[in-house]
Each structure stands twice: as structure tokens, then as C-alpha cells.
């Protein structure tokens, strides 16, 4: 550390002297246990010493992290120095900072600490786009967050509350996809446990019990674990959930029971909102609100990025979405939508029914297909319902500030995108669409999934939408007439 600036450099919270070593040691417990159990006898003493040495090393390393880690919030840069043998100096320009999020796992919370994660919102660049202070005191973390995002100090007039947790929402938890994942995890865990304690039921035992247990018992067990598991995940993830609006129009999400998460979204990064209704959730009259913002890293599945609330009643989700945009409810996801041309409706029907018909014909043609009488009608009726649902979902609208588009049956998505958030277009026309006189219009944006489509609109309408949102962009290319339905006259 150079002398003139050393006064500015700060260490992490002193309590990390305990937390880091203890957490690291906890991860080592299984290894140490194995050593302790197997290494007791005299000639195996070196293993015991080895284990102790390992523990001491881990302890020492954990403690050293506190001494080697320093950070500095400068006038124009945030800097972090880490590393014992290999020093690492990381700096982020303050005007590049887009997010400053707080998380605290149970160990941190026990000691009143929080991790500050400073992000630049860059999509590429991986780790370099992020800087993590693990960890500082809770008060200091809040202060840093406010300082880095240029917000009002804590204690300023309370920001308006957009939504807060209602315990009745827990009923939607089992209807989301994560419930299925929980079931899988729980049963996998149980099986592993059974294997660990050498509970391997013989084939005979298995057949006897399975033969005696009625099938509904198995189904009930699955459903009960799904419901309970989903409820537990819901409580852990959304305990104390509050969504408030910051002064700059940004959003602040606080949630979490064991791991406390604070997610802040800068107002100028919000490009729109989305309300998702997966089929199961829709049947329960629920929906999930998302904010479309730039700079949020995808979490692999890309599913819950920008979630600003749990699954909640549909009305609440729509109201929350409107609140995020700061507009009236009937100007956001509840905007009255325009129907698409008849050809688009025909396309929904053919696209759902033709594959089902092909499968049905194959099933009937197969010599040995015992369940034809059940399977074929179920297949066809299912496809027809899917088509009807897709037709009912399809729609779009252009309001004063936003482009609104809705589609989908398995997951019905209603997307509201700010006009100013559109940074490009893509117009697609397949052979069948050309015959039907339709195009699929993609509005390209820096937020969320990168582009959002208006499925199967008429050619004229698509050009009208583009011209309305970005005046003059396509004007040099627009001409009159030509063979019906073609996007491009050649």
C-alpha cells in the first residue's frame, strides 16, 4: 500500500475475522470427520496430524483474508485489493456502477453483516464487471449502497411502497415450476439417504409393498412433498418481501429469510415490465411480475431474472406492473389489446392441430396400440384447447409510451416495453407467413431477453408499428403495392 492514500483504504468488518474461518472450517467438517473416525489408531497418527494441519491452514487462510483485503471508495473509483500470495487489484468507475446489491447468508446475519455486490451492468466481461465486498457491517452496507447509487441517505422520507408480502400468496407456490424441482430434490435426497444407511430393499420386499400400496398413496406422497417443499422455498425466498420505489424512479426489492437479499434497480435502467402466467399458475388465477431492466445477469436458466415479486394473484401482479412503470393499470399489462388478422388465428389452429393429427394417424395406423380409444381423443382435444388458448392470448397494442404484446399458452407472457427502450428491430417472414400475409416483428432492446416479439401481425400493421415507435427509420424503404402478403417487393 502506498503511503499517501493508505488512510483511505478500509478493511472489511472486524467480525469477518471470525466468520471467514468458521465458514471455511464448516465446509471442512466432513473431511475432518472422516479423518477423525479412521485416523484414531497409533500407526495412523500422521493422518490425525495431517487433518489438524489442514484445519490450521484453513483457519490461517480465513484469518489472512481479513488482513489482505482492503477497499476504498474514491471520488471517481471503487477499488478492492485482495489476495495473500497473488495480489489482485480491482477497480470500478463510479459512474459505471449500475447495481449495488446486498446479500447476507445465515452466518453473515448472525453477526449483523452483509455482502455488497457492486455491478457495472455489463453483460460481457464476467467477473470483472463485478466487485464484491464480503462482508461489511449491515449499517455500513446500507450506507455504501446509498452512496454508490447516489440515493438519499437512510432516514430520508419513506419511499412509496409498491407491494409487500401477503401470506395468502403461499397458495401459488406449489403452482410454479420450482415446486416440481423441489419434489425432485427431496426425493433424490431421500433416496441418497436410504442408500447411505444401506437401506436397500430387496426386490421381493419392494414388489410386496408396492403391490399392496395403492397408487393414490404414491401420488399423494408426491403432491404433499411438492406442496410442502414449495411452501418452504417460498417462505425462505420471499420472507419480508417489500418492493419500494426509489427517488429516481428505480426499484428496491427486499426479501429472504435465511439469506437476506436486497436488489436495487436503477430507474433509468427499467425498460418495461412483463407479467408471466404459466398454465398451472393461470388456472389458479395467479401471475408473476417481472421488470425488464438492462444489466441484470442471466442466472443460467434465465427464468427469474428481474423478478420483482413472487407468484401472486393476477390482479395484484398487473397492479404491481403498472406501479413499476408508474402508469395507470389500463396503460400497462391490462391495456386493451388489438386482435391479430384472421390468418394469424388460422395459423394458431393449424400449428396446434397438424402435429397432433400426424401423431394420431400414426397411433391409429400402428398395429398394436391398445390405448387408441383414450389417447387419440385426449390428444386432439388437448391440441384444440391449446389452439383456442393461443388465440385468446394473442394480441398487441401501442400506447402513448409503450409497446404491448401478449402471446402463449403454456406460458402466457404479457410484455410492456417502453418506446424509448426499443433499440432496433427484426422483421421475419417464413414461407407460410408470406402466403398468409403475416410477419413476426421483434422489438430489440437492451433489457431482459434482448428482444420481444409481436407474433403474426399483418405486414402493413408491422410497418405502422415500426414507424410509430421509431419514426423515419424505415421510411426510405416503404413503397406502395406489390403482390399481397409479401414483406419485401422484389
Amino acid at each position: 500500500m502506498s503511503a499517501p492514500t493508505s488512510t483511505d483504504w478500509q478493511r472489511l468488518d472486524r467480525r469477518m475475522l471470525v466468520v471467514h474461518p468458521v465458514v471455511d472450517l464448516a465446509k471442512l467438517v466432513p473431511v475432518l470427520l472422516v479423518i477423525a473416525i479412521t485416523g484414531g489408531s497409533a500407526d495412523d497418527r500422521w493422518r490425525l496430524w495431517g487433518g489438524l494441519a489442514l484445519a490450521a491452514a484453513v483457519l490461517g487462510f480465513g484469518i489472512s483474508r481479513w488482513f489482505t483485503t482492503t477497499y476504498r471508495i474514491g471520488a471517481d473509483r471503487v477499488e478492492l485489493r485482495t489476495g495473500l500470495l497473488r495480489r489482485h487489484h480491482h477497480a470500478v468507475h463510479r459512474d459505471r456502477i449500475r447495481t449495488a446489491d446486498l446479500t447476507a447468508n445465515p452466518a453473515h446475519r448472525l453477526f449483523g453483516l452483509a455482502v455488497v455486490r457492486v455491478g457495472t451492468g455489463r453483460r460481457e466481461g464476467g467477473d470483472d464487471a463485478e466487485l464484491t465486498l464480503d462482508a461489511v457491517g449491515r449499517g455500513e452496507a446500507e450506507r455504501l449502497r446509498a452512496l454508490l447509487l447516489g440515493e438519499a441517505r437512510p432516514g430520508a422520507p419513506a419511499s412509496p411502497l409498491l407491494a409487500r408480502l401477503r401470506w395468502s400468496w403461499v397458495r401459488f407456490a406449489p403452482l410454479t415450476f420450482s415446486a416440481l424441482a423441489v419434489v425432485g430434490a427431496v426425493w433424490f435426497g431421500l433416496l441418497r439417504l436410504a442408500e447411505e444407511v444401506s437401506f436397500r430393499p430387496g426386490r421381493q420386499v419392494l414388489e410386496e409393498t408396492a403391490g399392496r400400496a395403492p397408487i393414490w398413496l404414491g401420488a399423494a406422497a408426491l403432491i404433499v412433498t411438492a406442496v410442502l417443499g414449495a411452501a418452504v422455498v417460498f417462505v425462505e425466498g420471499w420472507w419480508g418481501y417489500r418492493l419500494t420505489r426509489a427517488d429516481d424512479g428505480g426499484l428496491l426489492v427486499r426479501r429472504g429469510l435465511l439469506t437476506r437479499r436486497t436488489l436495487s434497480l436503477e430507474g433509468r435502467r427499467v425498460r418495461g415490465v412483463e407479467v408471466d402466467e404459466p398454465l398451472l399458475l393461470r388456472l389458479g388465477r395467479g401471475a408473476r411480475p417481472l421488470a425488464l431492466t438492462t444489466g441484470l445477469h442471466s442466472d443460467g436458466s434465465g427464468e427469474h431474472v428481474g423478478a420483482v415479486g413472487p407468484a401472486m394473484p393476477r390482479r395484484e401482479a398487473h397492479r404491481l406492473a403498472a406501479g413499476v412503470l408508474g402508469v395507470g393499470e389500463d396503460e400497462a399489462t391490462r391495456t386493451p389489446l388489438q386482435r391479430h388478422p384472421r390468418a394469424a388465428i388460422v395459423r394458431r389452429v393449424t400449428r396446434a392441430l397438424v402435429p397432433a393429427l400426424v401423431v394420431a394417424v400414426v397411433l391409429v395406423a400402428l398395429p398394436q396400440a391398445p390405448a387408441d380409444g383414450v389417447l387419440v381423443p385426449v390428444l386432439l382435444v388437448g391440441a384444440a384447447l391449446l389452439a383456442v388458448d393461443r388465440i385468446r392470448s394473442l394480441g398487441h397494442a401501442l400506447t402513448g409510451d409503450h409497446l404491448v404484446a401478449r402471446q402463449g399458452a403454456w406460458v402466457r407472457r404479457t410484455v410492456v416495453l417502453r418506446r424509448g427502450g426499443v433499440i432496433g428491430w427484426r422483421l421475419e417472414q417464413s414461407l407460410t407467413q408470406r402466403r398468409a400475409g403475416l410477419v413476426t416483428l421483434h422489438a430489440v432492446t437492451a433489457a431482459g431477453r434482448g428482444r420481444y416479439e409481436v407474433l403474426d401481425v399483418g405486414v402493413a400493421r408491422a410497418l405502422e408499428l415500426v414507424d410509430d415507435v421509431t419514426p423515419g427509420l424505415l421510411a426510405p424503404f416503404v413503397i406502395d403495392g406489390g403482390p399481397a402478403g409479401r414483406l419485401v417487393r422484389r
Partner: protein
Amino acid sequence: MTTPETGEPRLRTPAQRLSPRAKLWWALRSALGTLVALVPQVGVAWFLPDYARLMVLTGVLTVVIGVVHLLVVPRWRYALHRWEITDDAVHTLSGWLRLEWRIAPISRVQTVDTDRGPLQRLLGLSSVTVTTASSSGALTIDGLRADDAVALADRLTRATEHLGEDAT
């Protein structure tokens, strides 16, 4: 919607074509693709003689499809692919079965790259890729003459230079 059947607005094609050598480039890529598809079939026929007859059948089929693809698709693409730069935006039209018209406003362009693969270098061709802040907003013009590509990238870079905004 009450738009009449004729007289509806549509788009004229963008003005610029690719280099005619792009046809050759696509043809070479098509041939390589066919070869890659043949390799596992030859492998199976060689090591598992039982399946040799089947592999001969699929192999012939692969070659027929490959040759048709090689003869038809490059010409088709060349006839369709166009690009143009207006004062406001970069436009590309591409595809063969599915037409795709991409628009990137110049004010939103973040980077302009030129890029030459081994095949393109052999033929003196180059690609220009224009990216915006969106993860799916990139726009590529393949098969330009190398000089044209450099000139184009230059012009775009200059056009975007004095728009120092965030462009998101």
C-alpha cells in the same frame, strides 16, 4: 383491420448486394457441411459391417441433398441478401426460406467488427458485425469484398464516434 388487398405498403429491397464470390463461399461451406455429415456414416460402415448397406443408403441420400443444397441455396441467398446504410440505421436482409430484415439505428450501435475466417480469406471476403446493447441485437453482413468491409466498418465507426451516449 380495413386495409385493402392491394396498395398495401411494403418494403423495397436494400440497395447493396454482396460480393458475387459470396456464392462460392456458401457453396464451399455447404460442401464442407456435407462432408462432415458423411464422416460418421463412413465410420459406422467401416467398423460395423452389419450396417454398411443402410449407411450406403443414407450416404447416397446425404450426397444428393448436399449437392442440391450446394447448387440451389448459395444462388438463392445471393439473390435475396442485401444491405444498406441510411442516415439513421443499418439495414440487412437475409435468409432463404425465412426472410429476416434487421434494423440497427446508428445512434444505438456500440461496436463494429470485421472478421475473416479461413474460407473467407481464401476468397478475399470479409464479414462486418454491428452490435448494439441488446444481447440479440447484433447484425452481420457476411460475404463482403474485404476492401468494402474495411471501408464500411470505417464509415460506421466514424458515424457512431460522435454519438458518445450509452446507447442502451
